[in-house]
Each structure stands twice: as C-alpha cells, then as structure tokens.
C-alpha cells in the first residue's frame, strides 16, 4: 500500500474537520476525492503531506509514518496545494530549477525540459510566473509537483482554471501517470472523476460516506433508468406516464421528456411500442447515465 490512512481525525477547536477517515491507495491507482466545500478534502491532503499534524490517527506513505518520518514522506510525495502557491517574481525555469535544487536532483536541466514539455509550458518557459494566465500557473504547479518523479502525487484540485483543451491534456497526463504511480486528487467536477479515477472517495462534513469505483457508485441511484425521449408530435403527458414500468416523466424541452423508470425496469421497449401504437414519430430514445452528480447530491445532502 503506498498510501494508508487509518482513523485520521483533525480537530480545529471543537470542530471536527476530518472525522475518523480510513482508506488505502495502491500503486497504479488514481483516487478521486469528492466532497462539498469544507468537507475536509484539503485538510486530509495536508495531513498526508505532513503540512498539518493530525489530532489522532495515522497516515503512512510508502511505509513511512507522516509524524515520525516526515522527511522520507516529503521525498516520496509530489504535492500541489489547493491555492497553487508560486513565486510570482521568478521565471518559470528559474522556479523549476529551485525546486530541483531543493530535491537535490542530479540532472535538473534535462528533467525540467521533460516537465516543461509534458505540461505544455514550452512557449511560456521564459516568462515570469506572475505574467502567466491562471491555467499556465496551474501547469507550473503541476510541473513542480512532478519534477522529482515522486511515487505518490497528491493534487488538490489540479484542473481548476484550465480551459477545455488544457483540461483534456492534463487529465490524460494524470491518467497516464496513474498507471505506475499513486495519484490522489480532489475535484468538484464529476466528469473528471469518470475520466481519470479508478476509485472515488466521497467525504461529507469530515466523514467518509463512500469509497467505491465510479461505475459502482453510478449504480447506486436506486436502480432506476433514465430515458430521454423526443417525439415529432406532442403526445399527452398523461399517456406517457401511463406506460408500464414508468415512474415519473419530466418535460425537458418542447417535445422532449425525461422518463424515469421504476427500479430495475428498462422502459425503452414499451415506449417504442407506445409510439408505434399511437402513430407518433420517435426522434430520440436514449438511455441517460444516471449521473455521479445524483449520487454525490444524495450522499452529501444528508
């Protein structure tokens, strides 16, 4: 186990920021941390990276305890803090050189070239960090976290501020890294979890409420199937709801409806027959994925 967290708790005064959280992450796994703002995601990451000490519990990284062996832990970890702190008056290369020196890397120049290339900073490498846009600053943050080729990457909202093109690049970069390393990342974006993560942990009010694969989590929404239907004509809502196996129907647009099935039923066949019987022209009949958003809301609104 490259990262192991056991009964980790952090108290800020009387408030339990993180409450008895346990989980494990294996090498070659990308773990997504989900939770509403203030749920304790960043605090958990800060404890694993030895920035703040836990009130109780234990965290180990590659077998090294964060309290007893912080230096070894810091060597193993690449960390991107949530606020992505950088020295704005340093040049991109200068900053990465500094980080390389801190880690006492032997082939700094070559490694920086690799990272600059990997994170798409080539055109910006001679600029001052303060002059870069938010997305490029984020890339510098990611580059500094990965510079010393750490076994464990802890990225607190790595994709915030990136444009859609950059998002795709950075996501595939992280997914590739995840094949041989351990990656823990936090995010608010559900598609990101589906795109990158092998496993998801959902935290709410400091407590762990779910620890599963994204696929399994999706199936949790009470087993209902959601189908998007579009007719050329406008049938009566009443008739639609009367189709067998249908629980509720929601109107989306003019001729579009979202049909929610009763648990365990797939209403598509019935809808097709219904359209054929009534002589309606069926334009769309599409099974929607019950989204992770629903699961997330269900689990964190308690």
């Amino acid at each position, binding site marked *: 186990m490259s990262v192991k967290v056991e009964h980790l708790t952090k108290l800020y005064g009387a408030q339990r920021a993180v409450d008895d959280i346990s989980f494990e992450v294996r090498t070659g796994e990308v773990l997504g941390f989900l939770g509403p703002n203030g749920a304790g995601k960043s605090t958990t990451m*800060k404890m694993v*990276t*030895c*920035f*703040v*000490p836990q*009130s109780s519990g234990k965290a180990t990284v590659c077998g090294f305890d964060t309290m007893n062996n912080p*230096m070894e832990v*810091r*060597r193993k*970890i690449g*960390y991107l*803090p949530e*606020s992505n*702190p*950088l*020295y*704005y*008056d*340093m040049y991109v290369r*200068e900053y990465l050189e*500094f*980080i390389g*020196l*801190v*880690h006492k890397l032997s082939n700094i120049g070559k490694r920086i070239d690799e990272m600059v290339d990997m994170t798409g900073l080539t055109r910006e490498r001679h600029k001052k960090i303060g002059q870069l846009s938010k997305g490029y600053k984020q890339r510098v943050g990611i580059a*500094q976290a990965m510079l010393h080729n750490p076994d464990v990457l802890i990225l607190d909202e790595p994709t915030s501020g990136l444009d859609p093109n950059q998002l795709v690049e950075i996501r595939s970069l992280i997914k590739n890294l995840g094949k041989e390393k351990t990656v823990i990342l936090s995010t608010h974006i559900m598609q990101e979890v589906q795109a990158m993560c092998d496993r998801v942990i959902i935290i709410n009010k400091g407590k762990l409420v779910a620890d599963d694969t994204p696929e399994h989590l999706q199936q949790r929404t009470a087993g209902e199937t959601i189908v998007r239907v579009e007719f050329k004509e406008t049938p009566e809502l009443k008739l639609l709801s009367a189709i067998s196996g249908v629980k509720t129907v929601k109107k989306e647009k003019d001729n579009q409806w979202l049909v929610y099935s009763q648990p365990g039923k797939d209403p598509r066949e019935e809808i097709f027959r219904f359209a054929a019987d009534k002589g309606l022209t069926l334009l769309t009949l599409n099974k929607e994925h019950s989204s992770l958003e629903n699961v997330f809301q269900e689990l964190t609104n308690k």
Partner: protein
Amino acid sequence: MLSIYRKEINAFFSSLIGYIAIVVFLVITGLIVWVFPDTNVLDYGYASLESLFFVAPWVYLFLIPAITMRSFAEEISNGTIEMLTTKPLREIDIILGKYFAALTLVFFSLLPTLIYYIAIYQLGAPKGNLDSGAIWGSYIGLLFLGSAFVSIGLFASSITSNQIVSFVLAAFLCFFFHWSFDFLSGLELFYAKIDDLIEAIGINAHYISISRGVVDTRDLVYFISFTAIFILLTKTVLESRKWK
C-alpha cells in the same frame, strides 16, 4: 539550505531590494562621512572613520528590518510556506538559507565603504596615520551587529503574515536590544550597582567593545548566542503550526 540561499540572493538582486538597500546605505554613510559639515572627516581634521561606525547601526536599524520583513511574512501570506514545508527541507535549512542571504546583503552594503578606509588612509598626515586596528574591529563589530539584527528581523517576519507589522516589530526589537539597555543602566535603580550587567545585555556595549579593535571572546560569544537565540525562536515559531 543552499537552494534557499540561492533563491533569496536571486530575489534580492533580481528585484530592486538588494540595490536599494546597498545604495541607500552608501548614500547615507557617504553624506555623513564626507559631506555634512558637522560630521565630515575633512573638516574634522582627524583621519578616522568614527562617524561611519557611529551612524551605521542607525541606518541598519531601518535597513535590515526592511530587508528581512518579507522573508517569512510574504511566504505566509502567499501560501508558499505550504509549498516549502512540504518539500524535503528542514525548518532550520529554510531559516539559515534566509539568514545567510540577508547577511550577505549586509556584507555587500559594507564592502564599498572600504573605499572610505582607503581614502582616509591616503589623506592621513603622514600617510596611513590612522587606527587601523579600531577600524577592522569596527567592521567585524558591524557584521556581528548585522547578524544580530538579521536574526531579529527573521523572527519578526516569522510571526506575522503582514510585512508592515514585521518591519515595525523588527525595528523596535533592534532598537530595544541595541540601545535601550545602555539608557536603562543609567536608571537610579541600577546605577552604581548592576549597571554594568544591564549594559552588557544590550548589543551596543559589545559593539563598542569590539570597535576598540580588541576582539574579545566574550563579545563573540555574546553575538553568536544572541543570533542563535533568535534563530531558534524563529524555528520554534515555524514549528508551532505542528503543535496540536
């Protein structure tokens, strides 16, 4: 430690901070030693650099807190302290890197004043008729004083995220430890009883002692322990975030 030292030195000399500090120091001391009618060496008639060594602590009183005020306060307010302390660096590495960088800047501000020494050496009648021992002693004393002020400045910077608070606090502590014990020792309460002892707590007594040209181990021990105490205080402050 070396990586932090390099970063700090680069920060001083790639921005205006380093140059401003050096130029301001040289302009003020230059005016006092060569231009101002009440203090300049030329009118005074004696080949000595006393005016330089008298005014330098006053200039450093403001200049060194200005150099050190950002050292930790800026890292705390930018959050870069989180980046630094999650890297394989010990707190003491970070502090010493910043300490030696600031001390280097003090050294560079002092270096050009050797020209004053050479000039006065040439002006002496006969040539070279000046108390070189006292001057070298004073330079050593100034460096130690700089080291003490830098350690105070780092401490003041570590306890706040606000650079102005850091500056004012550092300037006050420098003043307090440099001069106030001299004045306090004159209080009737202490006078002729323990005034020597009170005076010896302050920096000034030791600075003057070294300035005479005699480098006494007592003064060395004083300056080294003074600096060490403030560096350890800074370390304690940085580590305090780890207290539960």
